[in-house]
């Protein structure tokens, strides 16, 4: 390929272009923060970005899998609420230990993903509708278990929730953050180094091609929704560590934050393109904007939404331009 193409074209065509932009944006925001607010200089503020958003990071990993195959899952927030509520209920009213309860709620998440994935795959249904049903179902079930808040008072649970893991003399992270980072790393490796991961990419690139290439499209699809269901439940566990309660209106709309983070992190809604570390940055950018607004003190928290909305617009326009550019570069290759 002896293209006499500008550096710009090659950059834009690079697979890590979106990631680069997101990383650049994150650094710029952080530097602006450091220049304006002394607080940003403290390492703990950086750690807090992770602590506050640990559940969202895990949910974003889950939705990224589904977005990769060109699907969607809008049941995440409800499954998080169901998980919190189930945990709280079981811990309060049974003799089951924290570990057993966690295993049970994770299994529920897997099962939830399995049923949704099976419906979508077997009957060739729209994932939006199936997971909308899932959303209603999980939220409804949560309220049926209890319409009031159930506090979690289990000693093991509260101990884990308040544990501080120091990574620097003056900066600590929570157990939730460790879970989130492990999830992130595992997801990145699975997507890059396993057949399951590569089949997900192939499925997102072109389902009919994947089928003709002899890949197991059906089982891959179901497994992908199971991954998302599992991540939702895991996000629920981490969320319950922060909230220490079950409540029917926990995590309303979390799936939308997760989708936004994933897209800002470089995921294409049409499927086939995503880079998990990028989606982490997507979450952190949302977190940083929130931190800004907290430090400013006088601004309404809703400004976060407005800024995120603008960012989303910028990013989807950028993605459209990337796709078009690729097309142009390809067609001029003749």
């Amino acid at each position, binding site marked *: 390929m002896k293209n006499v193409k500008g550096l710009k074209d090659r950059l834009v065509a690079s697979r890590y272009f979106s990631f680069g932009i997101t990383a650049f944006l994150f650094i710029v925001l952080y530097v602006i923060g450091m220049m304006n607010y002394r607080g940003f200089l403290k390492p703990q503020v950086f750690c807090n970005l992770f602590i506050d958003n640990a559940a969202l990071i895990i949910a974003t990993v889950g939705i990224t899998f589904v977005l990769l195959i060109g699907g969607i899952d809008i049941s995440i927030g409800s499954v998080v609420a169901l998980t919190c509520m189930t945990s709280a209920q079981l811990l309060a009213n049974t003799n089951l230990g924290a570990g057993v309860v966690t295993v049970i709620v994770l299994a529920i998440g897997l099962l939830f993903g399995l049923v949704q994935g099976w419906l979508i795959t077997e009957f060739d249904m729209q994932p939006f509708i199936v997971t909308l049903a899932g959303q209603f179902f999980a939220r409804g079930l949560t309220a049926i278990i209890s319409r009031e808040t159930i506090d979690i008072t289990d000693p093991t649970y509260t101990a884990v929730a308040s544990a501080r893991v120091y990574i620097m003399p003056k900066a600590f992270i929570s157990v939730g953050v460790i879970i989130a980072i492990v999830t992130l790393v595992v997801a990145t490796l699975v997507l890059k180094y396993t057949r399951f991961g590569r089949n997900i990419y192939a499925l997102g690139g072109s389902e009919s*091609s994947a089928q003709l290439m*002899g*890949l197991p499209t059906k089982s891959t699809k179901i497994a992908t929704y199971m991954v998302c269901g599992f991540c939702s439940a895991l996000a629920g566990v981490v969320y319950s560590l922060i909230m220490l309660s079950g409540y029917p209106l926990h995590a309303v709309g979390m799936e939308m934050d997760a989708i936004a983070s994933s897209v800002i992190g470089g995921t294409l809604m049409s499927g086939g393109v995503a880079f998990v570390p990028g989606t982490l940055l997507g979450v952190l950018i949302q977190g940083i904007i929130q931190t800004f607004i907290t430090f400013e003190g006088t601004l309404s928290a809703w400004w976060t939404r407005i800024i995120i909305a603008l960012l989303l617009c910028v990013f989807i326009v950028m993605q459209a331009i990337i796709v078009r550019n690729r097309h142009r570069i390809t067609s001029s290759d003749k």
Partner: protein
Amino acid sequence: MAEHALLTMRGICKYFPGVRALENVDFTLRAGEIHALMGENGAGKSTLIKVLTGVHAKDGGRIELEGRQIAPSSPLEAQKNNISTVYQEVNLCPNLTVAENIFIGREPKKAGRIDWKAINKRASELLRRLNLANIDVTKTLDSYSVAVQQMIAIARAVDIQAKVLILDEPTSSLDENETQRLFEVMRDLKKQGLGIIFVSHFLDQIYEVCDRVTVLRNGELVGEYEIDELPRVELISKMIGKELGDIQNMGKNASAVSDEVLIEAEGLTAFGRIKDFDLTIHKGEVVGFAGLLGSGRTETAELLFGVAKPEKGSIKMHGKEIKLSSPLDAMKHKIAFCPEDRKVQGIIGDLSVRENIIIGLQAKNGMWSHLSMKEQQRIADEYIKMLQIKVSSPEQLIKNLSGGNQQKAIIARWLVTQPDLLILDEPTRGIDIGTKTEIQKMVINLAREKQMSIIFISSEIDEMTRTCTRLAVLRDRKKVAELTGDEINSDRVMAAIAGGV
């Protein structure tokens, strides 16, 4: 070596509801040969291939690969039996790298994880062997042109230890150079002992690269021939099913063509459609586009209807140059186009015959100009009578009409717009003989009495010789001959389609 039968298909039958797609078809592929599979539309080529690749289950017959009976029930199973297919549309994933596209589903692993180094190394080696050295296998597939993607698809197919490689119209999106590169690869593979099944509509390509040809017609086997021993004209007559000199001319169209030029095309060129196409159409003339499927008949007609824009050349109408950038433009210039597949592109099944006829007028006049119900009924009645459309009432749903009457209604739809030029693409396909004759008569009448100019496209040569006053013969997307008057007879037309004789 060529005598060793690699793959034999015997007595293959395949039925679809109401259609006999394959009846008792035999096919033999030898190791180290390139075998063309020929036939017109509906001959059963693609069904045969789909039976072989496990997309369709066969209803009868047996398939043996190297003496072992096989019955693939999915593309994956066919692959496991060393039968690989490269389709016309590239069936790879654009978002994955070149190397991954070759290896996905069977990635080499090291310590339980995918060994990317090995994948990239083996992919480059493989492509180098296919003379595609300057491809960066770590780039995503969509950074390369369709031609290169096609080669990569072949590389994948070959690397799955294929013994039988099926190439289903791989050249339709390639230009001359790219096609030659593909042929080199094919010849290489042939030397390595692969059996290659090659499907293409391009006669020149068949004669250039193939050793044998199997011809199918109407789901039946016509025969298997050595390509060197089969003159082109004979191949065509076998595909079309007419022996040379077999057809007498029946009542010719001798309409008086006026001298007034309606439309003049000069040097029309559009990539993948037609090259340097010149044509003059007079008022009241029926011009036929003859040629095999894929020769550029429809594609050229579409240029005249603004479906695609020509890259070069001009179209003049009434002596003035016009630009057709959309079908609506063409309609404004009083050009009408009746597409080939009336089910998909023509009728709106759930509307009545009247509505289907009026819709053409409505589209031309714009959404807001209202036609009273009375006026609509009057127009519908007039054309139903004129074209003798058999309906119980103009309000009958068009989907309940027979194919021939649907076709007439579509033609009526265009006639109400009173076009100067009417393009009919395969107007008689799939309708009974009686209606066929009526449509042919109608075409002649429209030209003779209304001085309408008509472009008539058909695969049936005798139909063309009967209705057309002039014939443009197309082959491999070029106009190769233009016949008028007494020159229009089946022998001449077939010879021109075959070319090189």
